[in-house]
């Protein structure tokens, strides 16, 4: 793929910045064990971050299928135009290095964080996975994100076929192509799935296994997937770029049973200040860059920032520690309110956000996408709003019930597949 020039990239820190996902996949296969470091640049990441990413990762070589990289790009020692043509590579692999794989995640101030993994930590959850016959994997994620990379590596390491998504395709086109290629296993975030369920093309899929990760899988989405695909196994996994893959839940219910905490092989978990902390050989090693924070604490645990609550013997994810809304001193996690909204029969998806209040400091409001229904085009919106509010009041204390509900045609989902939340 690199026209036999892969050897030139030995021991270099190589930035992979391609428009085409398949080209990036080929470069990963070719450079692991050769390059000192490979940096996966997500296709949607703003080019203004490029210079700082290159500096932090000490990038000295670039693989790209782009004609122009934009202005203000630092000088580079080696530029490797990539071709789609696949040729046998001639790199000497007798002295392999343990290549660092750098994944970028969005930080709080919009600056991406550079997360250091190795093939061993990324593939930790697949140890001992047997080649699977008849399985065709796919994912809504781009493979340059942790969730997508997991599926790509699973396919490569178990020798199964893999249908990649494409940023140039609509959800409907992707679903049609996935169905035409006989996809049996498919993964995405709950937001990916909520979007897919709004497309009529979802009915083309005949999945054996549906996998959710990256966001909280609430009762509403699990129920919708079960009723759309009664024959499929619906699994939700807990994984993050920093904490790695921790565990899977396949009993069809939100949250996880308390036994998972101590009974997961190869992964140690504990709860500190209601937050899930994870130690395993699948966690990231560190962040790169000047003044970078530590990924692990002194005991090697990664704090996931995900807040848990124990309810009737089962742990439920209630939200992110840094996304909390403070309503007159009372804490509200947007996700716990969304989980209730999403259970209402008229609600397709929802986003709960904070609004300034002169009285309580902040107050909870919700943006709601209603389910498409042919027969109730003439729905009384006022009545639906009151019904949803009544439903929330029956299940939530009053400070968690949205003060206002706005009906919106769609919600913004980031390229990472997660709902875009602005922390006001």
């Amino acid at each position: 793929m690199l026209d036999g020039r892969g050897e030139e990239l030995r021991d270099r820190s190589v930035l992979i910045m391609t428009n085409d996902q398949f080209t990036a996949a080929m470069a990963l296969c070719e450079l692991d064990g050769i390059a000192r470091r490979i940096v996966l640049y997500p296709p949607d990441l703003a080019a203004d971050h490029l210079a700082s990413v290159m500096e932090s990762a000490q990038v000295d070589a670039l693989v790209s299928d782009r004609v122009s990289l934009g202005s203000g790009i630092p000088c580079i020692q080696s530029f490797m135009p990539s071709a789609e043509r696949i040729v046998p590579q001639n790199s000497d692999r007798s002295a392999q290095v343990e290549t660092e794989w750098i994944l970028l995640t969005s930080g709080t101030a919009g600056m991406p964080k550079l997360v250091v993994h190795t093939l061993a930590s990324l593939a930790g959850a697949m140890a001992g996975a047997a080649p699977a016959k008849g399985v065709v994997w796919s994912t809504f994620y781009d493979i340059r994100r942790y969730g997508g990379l997991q599926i790509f590596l699973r396919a490569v390491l178990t020798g199964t076929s893999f249908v990649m998504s494409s940023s140039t395709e609509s959800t409907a086109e992707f679903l049609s192509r996935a169905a035409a290629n006989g996809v049996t296993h498919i993964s995405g975030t709950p937001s990916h799935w909520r979007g897919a369920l709004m497309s009529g093309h979802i009915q083309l899929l005949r999945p054996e296994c549906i996998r959710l990760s990256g966001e909280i899988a609430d009762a509403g989405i699990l129920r919708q997937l079960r009723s759309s695909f009664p024959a499929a196994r619906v699994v939700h996994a807990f994984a993050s770029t920093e904490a790695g893959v921790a565990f899977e839940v396949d009993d069809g219910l939100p949250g996880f049973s308390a036994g998972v905490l101590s009974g997961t092989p190869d992964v140690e978990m504990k709860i500190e200040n209601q937050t899930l902390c994870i130690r395993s050989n699948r966690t990231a090693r560190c962040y790169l860059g000047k003044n970078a924070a530590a990924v692990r604490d002194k005991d090697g645990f990664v704090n996931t920032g995900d807040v848990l609550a124990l309810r009737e013997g089962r742990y439920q994810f209630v939200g992110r520690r840094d996304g909390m809304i403070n309503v007159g001193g009372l804490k509200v996690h947007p996700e716990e309110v969304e989980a209730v909204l999403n259970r209402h029969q008229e609600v397709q998806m929802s986003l709960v956000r904070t609004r300034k209040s002169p009285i309580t400091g902040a107050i909870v409001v919700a943006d709601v996408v209603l389910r498409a229904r042919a027969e109730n085009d003439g729905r009384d919106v006022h009545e639906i709003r009151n019904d949803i509010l009544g439903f929330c009041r029956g299940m939530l204390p009053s400070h968690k019930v949205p003060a206002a509900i706005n009906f919106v045609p769609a919600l913004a989902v980031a390229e990472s597949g997660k709902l875009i939340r602005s922390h006001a």
Partner: protein
Amino acid sequence: MTVRSEIISQFQQVAEEHEKQLPPLADDLELFETGLDSLCFAIVVVRLEELLGVDPFTSSEEALFPVTFGEFVSLYEQAAG
């Protein structure tokens, strides 16, 4: 609907949602006597902004929270005027 009738309607709706008994809304009624708590007032303010397009509390830094129902109404009437 006038600003006043919109406000009365929101007080009534929020009181009903929170199962509170609302006394007659006379101008000299002090807001704390309405039986509504701070969360209820926060909700009223959000909903009035949606209906009237104004939030007199955040649009002016000096706005003091009114004491009586009459002051509450005139604050909105001025802001919406």
